[in-house]
């Protein structure tokens, strides 16, 4: 097949990726969009298999069969609550594959030297290889640490150590030196693999200090990196579809990263390198809560819900941990059946990855029109009779609006405190990631329902059934 035809086929594949992503702009067209993307991938693979340089198919077939089987098992068996872990893992695999592809291209250079199939050895080749390996290694190890943190196997707090920023900067400088060595010794693989080891350490150090609640930013950023590593590999191999597809993913991850940062009112630099310190002199938990917290029972909540016209449910990471989404669906059905309008207020950083809560609620068959973004739901809270918060804390803390000295000052929050009654389902009064008390819990219109999210919602459902009769 001539290279012209191959490139046309790659162009079609790249266009299918773009149409596929465009399809994701609405839940109705999204399934079709994803299929178009898959079709584009199939086309790119089939065309590549026809490449004249391929002399044996055994290794490729073995790899595809093994990888395909693992992929199918992961995709079918994964729990929806574990999606952040799976995405982190996939990001990592993409990164590692980029390291290997760029490394193999570098080895081929020395094998093919002087033959017709030789790749032009120039600074562009070396720099592209360097970029692909560097981004790939940071992505792979960063993703593994993120995976460990999401699984709770690695300390999911913000792990700090003395001179941590300086260590990373020095490491980055050494990596750049090895990048320079790659450019001046273009046919040696040694600087590349040394650089990979160093970049691996950098990847680990990069994610270790980032705490659990900042994971949406990290997962989105690593998603972007996995695409950019593939795009860099495209520069190594001079392959247009690798560049286009990798860049699309890179752009997607960056947009999500920016959205996540805005939703926390923090800069990316602050999330990645900043210290999230609790300001001294803020009110203590005792001052905020002392004698003002009212606890409630399932019976009382059921009575409130029975008379409510409009109810908003605000899910947080706690709902995912408690696997409460199906119990929430039952509550939703019961209330809707009783003539109550139920909506869901979803904060952009609720959960451990962008859109985490929406997927869990969709899994529980909540119609997507009822899932409202922060901007959509916020003007409505004054008309809402009862707001139920399940396992969310910092994203509903009114201090963000009222106290300019608070560590979360200026962070956009869900204005749940404007609704007539707020019911907070929570295990205890312990602070969220920001480490500050939440005056909402002591507000006049707030009632605390202490307990496990799933159990609490199930109890509400039971009492509400008796109430409605």
């Amino acid at each position, binding site marked *: 097949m001539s290279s012209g035809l191959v490139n046309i086929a790659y162009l079609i594949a*790249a266009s299918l990726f*773009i149409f596929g*992503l*465009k399809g*994701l702009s*609405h*839940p*109705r067209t*999204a399934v079709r969009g*994803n299929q178009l*993307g*898959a079709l584009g*991938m199939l086309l790119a*693979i089939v065309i590549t*298999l026809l*490449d004249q340089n391929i*002399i044996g198919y055994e*290794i490729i077939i*073995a*790899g*595809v069969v093994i*990888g395909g089987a693992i*992929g*199918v098992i992961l*995709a*079918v068996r994964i729990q929806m609550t574990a*999606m952040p872990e799976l*995405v982190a893992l*996939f990001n990592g695999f*993409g990164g590692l*594959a980029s390291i*290997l*592809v760029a490394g*193999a291209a570098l*080895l*081929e250079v020395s094998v*093919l030297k002087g033959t017709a199939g030789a790749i032009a050895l120039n600074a*562009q080749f070396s720099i592209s290889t360097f970029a692909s390996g560097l981004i790939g290694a940071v992505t792979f190890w960063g993703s593994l640490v993120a995976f460990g943190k999401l699984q709770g196997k690695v300390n999911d707090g913000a792990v700090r150590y003395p001179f941590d920023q300086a260590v990373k900067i020095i490491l980055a400088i050494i990596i750049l030196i090895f990048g320079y060595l790659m450019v001046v010794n273009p046919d040696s693989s040694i600087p590349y693999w040394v650089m990979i080891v160093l970049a691996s350490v950098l990847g680990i150090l990069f994610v270790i200090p980032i705490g659990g609640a900042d994971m949406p930013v990290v997962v989105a950023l690593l*998603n972007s990196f996995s*695409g950019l590593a593939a*795009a860099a*590999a*495209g520069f190594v191999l001079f*392959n247009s*579809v690798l*560049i286009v597809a990798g*860049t*699309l*993913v*890179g*752009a*997607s991850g960056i*947009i999500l990263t920016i959205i996540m940062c805005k939703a926390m009112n923090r800069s990316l630099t602050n999330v990645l390198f900043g210290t999230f310190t609790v300001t001294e002199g803020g009110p203590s938990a005792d001052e905020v809560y002392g004698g003002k917290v009212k606890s409630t029972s399932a019976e009382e909540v059921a009575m409130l819900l029975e008379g409510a016209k409009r109810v908003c449910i605000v899910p947080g990471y706690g709902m995912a941990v408690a696997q409460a989404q199906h119990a929430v669906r039952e509550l939703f059905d019961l209330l809707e059946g009783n003539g109550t309008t139920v909506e869901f207020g979803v904060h952009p950083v609720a959960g451990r*990855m*962008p859109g*985490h809560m*929406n*997927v869990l609620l*969709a899994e529980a068959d909540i119609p*997507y029109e009822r899932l409202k973004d922060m901007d959509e739901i916020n003007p409505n809270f004054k008309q809402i009779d009862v707001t139920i918060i399940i396992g969310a804390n910092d994203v509903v803390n009114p201090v963000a609006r009222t106290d300019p000295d608070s560590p979360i000052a200026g962070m956009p929050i869900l204005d749940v405190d404007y609704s007539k009654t707020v019911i907070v389902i929570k295990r205890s009064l312990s602070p969220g990631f920001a480490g500050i008390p939440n005056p909402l819990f002591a507000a006049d219109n707030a009632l605390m329902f202490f307990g496990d999210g799933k159990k609490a919602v199930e109890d509400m459902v039971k009492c509400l059934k008796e109430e409605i009769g």
Partner: protein
Amino acid sequence: MDSFAMVFTIFVLAAFIGFEVIAKVPPTLHTPLMSGSNAISGIILIGAILSAGAQHTWLTAGLGFVAVVLATINVVGGFMVTNRMLSMFRRKD
């Protein structure tokens, strides 16, 4: 136009298209967007296929093989799990 300028042009234009298209994805679909774009970044598979198939040395073929396995996990797993998620967003009526 020299070849580097050409591939760099492709890169920059693709970035613009990416920003335009993805800015329109609603927050509800951000998780499927991540897993779906993840599957697309499995495009590295074609680089892996070229290394594994050309078999210049056993080492490049070996690196290619591992890369094929990893990239196929991304492609197959990514598209399938995205499909599974998106089917849950379909209106049930």
